[in-house]
C-alpha cells in the first residue's frame, strides 16, 4: 500500500517537476529590434577535459561580448548558450539535442573532445545544425558530413612537421609513447602510418594510461631500445612527467611533443627539463616574436592580450580553437547575408583566407578543416620560454 502510494506520488511529482524544470530555459519574446542569433556551445568546462573546455568557454564569451558591443553581426546580436558537458559524451548528446530541438540554435561550437564530437556528429547532421568542433580527431571531418566542421589543425600535419624536423636532425630511430585518450590515439595512428614514408623506424611504441603519475618504467623500455629521439603524444600532466623522467633516468635524446603542449604552464611545470623540447604548434604562443608583417600577428597579439588581461591567466592554443570557431561562424553569417543554417553552411565552405589563431583557413566542399601545413610553426623551449625553432 505504502509503495503504491509512494509510486503514484512520485510519478505525479515527476509530471509536475519535469515541465517546470525547463522553465528558466524558455526563450524570451524577441525584442522589437532584430531577433538575436542563437548560437549554442558545448564545452567540457569541468571534468577531465577542463583544461580544454574552460579556456574555450571563456574565449567565446569574450568574443561574443565584444561583437555584441559593436552591434553584432548583420545588425543582430549573438545570443550565446554555453553548456557544460563535463567531458561526458552522454551529456553532450543530451545537450546537443536540447540545443537543436528546443533552442533551435543556428550552430553548435565545440565540443572540446574527440569522443564527444564523434558521438554528436550524426545528431547535428540530421538536425541540420552546423557543428564547429574544437576537437582534434580527423574522423570528425573524414568521412565528410556536410554540416560538420572542425577548427584545430590536422594531427597528420603535426606529425609531418615532426618528421621533417627529424630529417633535418638525421634522426631515423625513435620511440613513440602516447596516452590512451582520443588525442593520443589519433597521434599514434598518424605517426605509425607516416613513419616508413619519412624514413623513420619506430623501435618502441607504447601506450600509457592518462592517469599515469610516473613514466620511468615506460621510458626505461624506450631507453633500452637505443632510440635517437622520443615522441610523446598526450596531454597534461603526462607531458611534464615525460620531460622530467627523461632527464632523471638520463635519457638524453631530443623530446618531441605534440601540439597539445600549447600552454606555458606545462613548461613551468617541468622546469628545466622542458628546455630543448621541440613541437609543432599554432603561432599564438610566440605571437610577440612574429615579424610585424605576418598575417596572423595582429589577431594573435590582440587575442592573447585580451584574454590574459580579462581572465588573468595565460592564453593557450586550446582557447584559440574556440576563437576560430566563432570567428568562422560570424564571418560565414556575414558572407551569407542571413542566419539561415543552409546558407551559412554553404558560406563556410566558400570561406577563403580567414585569419584565425590556428592559421589561415581555406575551406572547400571537400575540406571542412581548412588548415594546411603552414598552419603550424615548429616551436621549442629556451630558458623555459617558448621560441620559434631554428634549425
Amino acid at each position, binding site marked *: 500500500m505504502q509503495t503504491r502510494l509512494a509510486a503514484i506520488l512520485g510519478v505525479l511529482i515527476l509530471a509536475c517537476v519535469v515541465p517546470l524544470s525547463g522553465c528558466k530555459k524558455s526563450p524570451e519574446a524577441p525584442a522589437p529590434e532584430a531577433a538575436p542569433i542563437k548560437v549554442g556551445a558545448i564545452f567540457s568546462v569541468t571534468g577531465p577535459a577542463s583544461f580544454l573546455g574552460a579556456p574555450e568557454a571563456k574565449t567565446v564569451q569574450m568574443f561574443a561580448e565584444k561583437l555584441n558591443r559593436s552591434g553584432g553581426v548583420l545588425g543582430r546580436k549573438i545570443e550565446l548558450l554555453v553548456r557544460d558537458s563535463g567531458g561526458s559524451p552522454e551529456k553532450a548528446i543530451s545537450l546537443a539535442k536540447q540545443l537543436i530541438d528546443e533552442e533551435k540554435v543556428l550552430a553548435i561550437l565545440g565540443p572540446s573532445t574527440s569522443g564527444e564530437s564523434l558521438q554528436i556528429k550524426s545528431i547535428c547532421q540530421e538536425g541540420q545544425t552546423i557543428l564547429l568542433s574544437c576537437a582534434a580527431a580527423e574522423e570528425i571531418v573524414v568521412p565528410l558530413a556536410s554540416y560538420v566542421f572542425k577548427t584545430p589543425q590536422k594531427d597528420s600535419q603535426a606529425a609531418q612537421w615532426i618528421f621533417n624536423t627529424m630529417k633535418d636532425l638525421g634522426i631515423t630511430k625513435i620511440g613513440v609513447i602516447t596516452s590512451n585518450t582520443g588525442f593520443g590515439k589519433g597521434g599514434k595512428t598518424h605517426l605509425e602510418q607516416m613513419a616508413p614514408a619519412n624514413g623513420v623506424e619506430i623501435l618502441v611504441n*607504447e601506450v600509457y594510461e592518462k592517469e599515469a603519475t610516473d613514466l620511468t618504467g615506460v621510458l*626505461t623500455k624506450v631507453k633500452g631500445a637505443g632510440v635517437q629521439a622520443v615522441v610523446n603524444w598526450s596531454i597534461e600532466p603526462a607531458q611534464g612527467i615525460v620531460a*622530467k623522467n627523461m*632527464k*632523471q633516468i638520463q635519457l638524453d635524446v631530443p623530446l618531441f611533443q605534440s601540439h597539445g603542449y600549447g600552454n606555458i604552464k606545462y613548461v613551468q611545470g617541468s622546469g628545466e627539463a622542458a628546455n630543448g623540447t621541440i613541437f609543432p604548434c599554432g603561432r599564438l604562443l610566440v605571437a610577440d616574436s612574429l615579424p610585424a608583417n605576418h598575417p596572423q600577428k595582429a589577431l594573435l597579439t590582440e587575442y592573447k592580450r585580451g584574454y590574459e588581461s580579462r581572465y588573468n591567466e595565460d592564453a593557450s592554443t586550446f582557447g584559440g580553437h574556440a576563437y576560430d570557431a566563432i570567428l568562422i561562424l560570424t564571418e560565414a553569417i556575414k558572407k551569407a547575408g542571413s542566419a539561415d543554417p543552409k546558407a551559412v553552411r554553404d558560406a563556410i565552405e566558400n570561406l577563403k583566407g580567414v585569419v584565425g589563431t590556428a592559421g589561415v583557413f581555406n575551406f572547400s566542399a571537400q575540406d571542412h578543416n581548412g588548415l594546411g601545413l603552414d598552419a603550424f610553426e615548429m616551436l621549442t623551449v629556451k630558458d623555459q620560454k617558448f621560441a620559434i625553432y631554428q634549425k
Partner: protein
Amino acid sequence: MDFALFVQYALSGITVGSVYAIVAIGFNIIYCTTGIINFAQGEFLIVGAMTAISLAEVAPLPVAILGAVLITTTLGAVVELVFIRQVRNASVLRLIIITIGLSIVMREVMLHIWDEQVRSLPYFTGTEVSTVTILGAHISPQVLWVLGVSAVIVAALTLFFRYTTTGRAMRACADDRMAACLCGVNDRWMVTLSFMLSAGIGALAGCVVSPITQTQYDMGAPLAIKGFTVAILGGMGNSMAAVAAGLFLGLLEAFVVSVLPSSYKEVAAIVVLLLILVFRPSGLFARRDVSALRAA
C-alpha cells in the same frame, strides 16, 4: 636485459610501490581500529599536497609541508566527527557508501578551491633535472626522499603501536573493541585518532611524491584503488605486509612493462587483485582463518 637496465626497472617499481604501500598503510590504520574501508584515503594525499603547494607560496618548504600535514590531520578528525560518528548500527554496505560519497565530495571541493590545473611542490633537493646514479641506474633524488620518508613512517608507526600507550590502545581496539572499552580505552577517541593518523601520513606521502607525480585534484581515486589492492594483497590490517605487498605490486608493474605493452600494466594489477580475492582473500601474508571472510 643488462644489469643497469634491470636496476632501472626495479627502482621504478620500488618508487611506485612505496607510494602504494603508504596509501595501504593509511587504509589499514582505519580498518584495524574501526573495520571501515576508507575510500577517501587517496583524497587525503591530494589534499595534503595541494595545501602544501598553496602554503609553499608564502612559507619555506618544510613549514609548508608541516602546515599541510597538520591541516589534513585536522580534516581527518573533522571527517570522522561529522560523518562517521553519526552513523549508528552501520552495516558494511552503508559505511562503504558513505566513504565513497566522501571521496567524491572532497574531490569536488578540491576542484572548486584549486581548479583543475596540475601543480607540484618543488623538489626537496635538486631540480627537475637532477639525477643520482645507483648501481648503474639513474633516478631523481626525490625518489630517495620517497623511499626514506616511507621507511621513516613505517618505522615510526611500528614504534608507536608497540611502545606507546595510545598505540597499544588502538591495537586493543582493533582486536576487540568491547574488551578494550571494558579496559577503560575511549574507543570513540581511538576512531578519531585513527582517521587523524591516516590523514596525516597520507598528507606527508602526498607531499613527498608531488614533485615526481605532480598533483591534480582527481588523482586521489586511482591512488586509492591501487592502495586498496595492495592492502588486500598483503592482508587487510597488516601494515608490514602492506609494505611488502606494495613493493611487490610496484615491481610487478614495472617488469610487466618491460616485457609486454605497457597498457597491460593496469590489467596486471587488477588481475592480481581478483585472483587474491578469489583464492586467498585474507591476503598473501595472512595467517588468520580464511573462513571468517567467506559468506557461504
